[in-house]
């Protein structure tokens, strides 16, 4: 099977369901169902995921100093869409396939905004589609500006 493997584990589903504040019994036990947004947690199984500190690598958050905002690191999550082909259950392994979707720009209040889509197709061991996920990210162009007005 090709794609990045994502073992769907009962304990992981339980922790994720607790984090979103959902104690639905369907999300508990050996054959737990996964909550609708659970596939995002496949980030744990992505060896190169950039938003996880890794041993021996510089991390951009605070320590002795305040940390460093990466160049173009002002990106935010603009939209998220899921299409479900069937429910996801503990005990199976999904295989994630990543592709880039459309990208476009829009004029915002303080400059141009760059939007881009990233599509993740989660397939099962038979290659059948299980969940299709589309992330739309937005990054403001140019130097990071202070965001006191964000509130």
């Amino acid at each position, binding site marked *: 099977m090709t794609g990045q493997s994502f073992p769907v584990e009962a304990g992981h589903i339980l922790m994720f369901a607790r*984090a979103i*504040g959902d104690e639905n019994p369907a999300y508990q036990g050996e054959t737990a169902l996964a909550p609708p*947004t659970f596939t995002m947690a496949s980030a744990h199984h992505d060896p190169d995921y950039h938003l*996880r500190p890794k041993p021996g690598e510089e991390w951009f958050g605070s320590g002795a100093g305040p*940390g460093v905002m990466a160049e173009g690191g002002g990106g935010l*999550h603009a939209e998220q869409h899921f299409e479900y082909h069937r429910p996801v259950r503990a005990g199976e392994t999904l295989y994630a396939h990543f592709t880039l979707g459309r990208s476009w720009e829009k004029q915002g209040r303080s400059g141009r905004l760059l939007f881009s889509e990233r599509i993740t197709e989660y397939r099962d061991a038979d290659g059948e589609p299980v969940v299709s996920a589309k992330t739309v990210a937005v990054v403001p162009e140019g130097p990071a500006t202070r965001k006191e007005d964000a509130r």
Partner: protein
Amino acid sequence: MSLSPDDIKVGETRESVLVDDLKRTRIVQYAGASGDFNPLHTDERFAVEAAGYPGVFAHGMLTMGMTGRVLTDWVGPESLLRFGVRFKAQVWPGDTLTATATVESVEETPAGPVAHFSLRTLNQDGAEVVTGTAAARLEQ
């Protein structure tokens, strides 16, 4: 568990308080479970001094995840066909969020009846933080 078309009417709504006074620890809990350790969400010093925000704010996906409960408590976790949102505004520690799902239509498809929902999650000031749509399969 899934609903039949007799259990659901166009225009019907469900409202649910997702969180009352969001705590920073909840955001940390979501970071750990999801694997998204972006310090913008959990590292106050980074968020203020390096990124220029007033403070840490919740992952959009925490709000989406919590919003999903209004759907799955209603139609069951196995019936969803689609779920999509737009993140309209940041969610901050201390926020209280209320989600509303509304049945917009019930469609007959070759695979059986499907309910279409609109979704709206507001903060304590009535500002939209998430809007979206979803579709769920109903029993034949």
